[in-house]
């Protein structure tokens, strides 16, 4: 049954009027939405940044492949090329970077001081390949596979430490997920309860509508639209607050984190994502809360 244009306009008009008529209840519902969405927003920003740090840590994991020392320069070159090709042929490998023993020594001198430049005469180091896996969690397996190739002197990836790090990150992510779900559930409960109170106060209205022959959807749509407005109104303060706060925190932290391993997410696209999340959740719980609450009173 198609709804007529003026009926749709009527539903919108009614939903707006109703916000005004139920002034205090509107205020109460919007406040409940505001508080919960503020929590959701702050939490989302924190979780997304923690996730970014975790991902950075994961991506930092690499395999060092020390190449066998081979006296003959030509032979050594051939052996290295072959090894690089073999490593590249592994599907889990994302990148292979070659570092000669001279480059390795330079790094050591930079880190530990000029005394080490003595070794420039007789460099005891190996040429090294730095290998990253497409999926950092595959690092151990990739390392094992590389170890089987010829001309590898030693393959290291921080065995033990890496597993611990991954385990820690996995637990943190799961804990974060549970917290977010818990928060969303609480938000839905809180908001649908507030909306239910406003609707219980108007059950007579619903009963009369039904008795003069209103269909369920005719009764329900204005309430559901009203729930949507409550959700939208309730998301305004959280969106503004989270955006302003994060913008300022980012400005303060940015110079201090320069050159550090630890980085936080830039304003864009993070704030668009979080604001989108806030308003979407606001609308969803507003609509869902109204829908569920009206349903109870439609059986007249």
């Amino acid at each position, binding site marked *: 049954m198609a*709804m*007529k244009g*003026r*009926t749709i306009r*009527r539903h919108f008009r009614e939903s707006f009027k109703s916000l005004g*008529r139920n002034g205090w209840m509107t205020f109460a519902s919007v406040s409940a939405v505001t508080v919960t969405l503020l929590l959701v927003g702050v939490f989302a920003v924190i979780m997304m940044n923690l996730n970014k740090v975790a991902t950075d840590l994961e991506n930092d994991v690499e395999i060092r492949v020390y190449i066998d020392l081979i006296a003959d320069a030509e032979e050594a070159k051939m052996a290295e090329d072959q090894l690089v090709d073999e490593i590249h042929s592994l599907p889990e490998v994302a990148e292979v970077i070659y570092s000669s023993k001279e480059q390795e020594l330079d790094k050591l001198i930079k880190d530990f001081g000029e005394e080490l430049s003595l070794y420039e005469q007789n460099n005891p180091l190996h040429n090294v390949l730095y290998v990253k896996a497409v999926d950092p969690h595959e690092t151990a397996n990739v390392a094992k596979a590389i170890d089987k190739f010829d001309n590898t002197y030693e393959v290291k990836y921080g065995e033990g430490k890496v597993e611990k790090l991954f385990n820690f990150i996995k637990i943190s992510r799961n804990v974060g997920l549970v917290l977010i779900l818990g928060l969303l559930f609480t938000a839905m409960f809180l908001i649908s309860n507030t909306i239910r109170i406003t609707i219980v106060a108007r059950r*007579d*209205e619903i*009963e*009369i*509508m*039904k*008795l*003069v*022959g*209103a*269909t*369920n959807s*005719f009764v329900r749509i204005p309430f559901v639209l009203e729930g949507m407005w409550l959700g939208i109104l309730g998301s305004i303060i959280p969106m503004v607050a989270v955006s302003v706060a994060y913008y300022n925190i980012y400005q303060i932290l940015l110079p201090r984190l320069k050159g550090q391993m630890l980085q936080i997410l830039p304003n864009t696209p993070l704030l668009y994502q979080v604001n989108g999340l806030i308003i979407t959740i606001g609308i969803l719980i507003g609509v869902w809360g109204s829908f569920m609450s009206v349903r109870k009173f439609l059986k*007249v």
Partner: protein
Amino acid sequence: MIQMNNVIKKYPNGVVATNGITIDIRQGEFVYVVGPSGAGKSTFIKLMYREEKATSGDVIVNGINLTTLKQSRIPKMRRQLGIVFQDFKLLPRLTVYENVAFAMEVIEEQPKKIRQRVLEVLELVGLKHKVRMLPSELSGGEQQRVAIARSIVNMPKVVIADEPTGNLDPETSWEIMNIFEEINARGTTIVMATHNREIVNTIRRRVIAIEGGMIARDEYGGDYGYEG
């Protein structure tokens, strides 16, 4: 118009409100439903607009069998009825005009038609000069007249009234009865549950008396028949 065939209504708590009622009300009739409190009058009335569903037996209104009617078809069915309640059941935040117009908005009538028809019925009940007032600014009798206007605005074939004068003083009750008579004179069937002996004994019409969930008496031009 309204037929009931051996209708039994048993509530979940075990109370049997109607115990085999069979009745036939024809188009254009004016019927009083009388009987002591708790005898099943209200249930009998509620069965007609499907607020209650019969446990067994058929209730046929306007050719529709309410016992087998699907839940989703109830709104359409109610649009062919006018219902008037003892407590008026007006929407407190809507004006007199809006309360009456509401019954037409619900069936998605054209705005022009709504305007015309609402003013027409408000004139019929004598409230055309109070269209902008809220129910709380009206007397009980005036509120009931608004409710009656709402019940007939969609030109139903039947108006069902559950003790429409129950909350009103005698003088106002007579005014309300005049309106019902006027509506009936235009061909609308009226079924009215009432406790008002004076009205039943003065405006003589068909009287259906219900006692213990059964029809105790069904008499054209009958009297109220119960002691005060």
